[in-house]
């Protein structure tokens, strides 16, 4: 059985099920990360001492990664806009850049993690490092998930463009909404963990 209302809007909600579904999923994601932000507040309030993030982590690397992730969000909206203008080649170009920037983010994050491990900073070293690795680790898992989905849409998934343009465009919109959410989480993680 086909899922209904993936191309046309459902009259009573005024939305496609794709869009409502992804927004509800993102709402649940807000609560998932919210629980960790809440834990961060609790741990920090009761901690006898708390390091300044900038003295433990590499702020220039973090800033660079913030720019990379925001850049990937920008290319993601360009990929979506290309499909709206009936331009599959443009979509492939921008989606390719989005995936490239996501991988660059992971590489930089890998260097950061590696550096922490080299100087003996592990998740069990301190409460600060525990919450740092937990939150950035969960965020990194989200990046990996997004890269897999986006790579599918760039590769085999893009065949749908030939059979159903609207459905494919809706899929990219949903993937884009998820990707911007991942960017949004980082926008808060960066100052909270690196700067405060």
């Amino acid at each position, binding site marked *: 059985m086909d899922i209904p209302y993936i191309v046309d809007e459902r009259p009573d*909600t*005024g*939305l496609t099920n794709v*869009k*409502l579904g992804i*927004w*509800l999923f993102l*709402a649940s994601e*807000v*609560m998932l990360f*919210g*629980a960790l*932000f*809440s834990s961060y*507040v*609790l741990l920090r*309030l*009761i901690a006898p001492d708390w390091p300044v993030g*900038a003295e433990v982590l590499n*702020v220039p690397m973090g*800033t660079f990664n*913030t*720019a990379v992730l*925001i*850049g990937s*969000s*920008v290319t*993601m*909206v*360009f990929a979506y*806009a290309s499909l*709206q*203008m009936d331009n599959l080649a443009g979509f492939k170009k921008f989606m390719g850049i989005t995936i490239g920037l996501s991988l660059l983010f992971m590489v930089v994050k890998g260097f950061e993690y590696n550096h922490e491990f080299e100087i003996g900073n592990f998740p069990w070293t301190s409460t600060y490092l525990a919450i740092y690795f937990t939150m950035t680790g969960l965020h990194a898992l989200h990046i990996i998930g997004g890269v897999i989905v986006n790579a599918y849409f760039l590769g085999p998934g893009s065949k749908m463009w030939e059979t159903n343009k609207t459905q494919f465009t809706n899929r990219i919109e949903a993937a*884009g*909404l998820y990707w*911007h*959410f991942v*960017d*949004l989480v980082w*926008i*808060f993680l*960066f*100052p*909270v963990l690196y*700067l*405060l």
Partner: protein
Amino acid sequence: MSDHVQHHIAIYKKVAAALAVLTFLTVAVSYLEVAVPLAVTIALLIAATKGSLVVSFFMHLIEEKKSVPLSRRGIGLIIGSLLLTALFFLVIIFIPIFGHADKVGTYFTLPNANAPTVETPAAH
């Protein structure tokens, strides 16, 4: 259709520029020597501004608002569920803060009270 999209692309570029400036600003401000509560407030204000730009324009939430007329479907399912989520998010963020600030049940003395103070050594 194409004009509509072109208009969007122009907005995306402006938002991208604003996000770049705000990222630079977040880092620059963190080097100022200000008290911790002020630093936290500034950092979170900038992050909230960036976040609302992403949600409003990249995630098109501004248009979701427009596409659901207030008279027909209330505030709309997307905005409605997000408002509910935001409410619960604030609740879980403030629970530890209120818990930390809560002094009910903690033993303390008023200046004129006759109650023994914490410093009073226990009688042997």
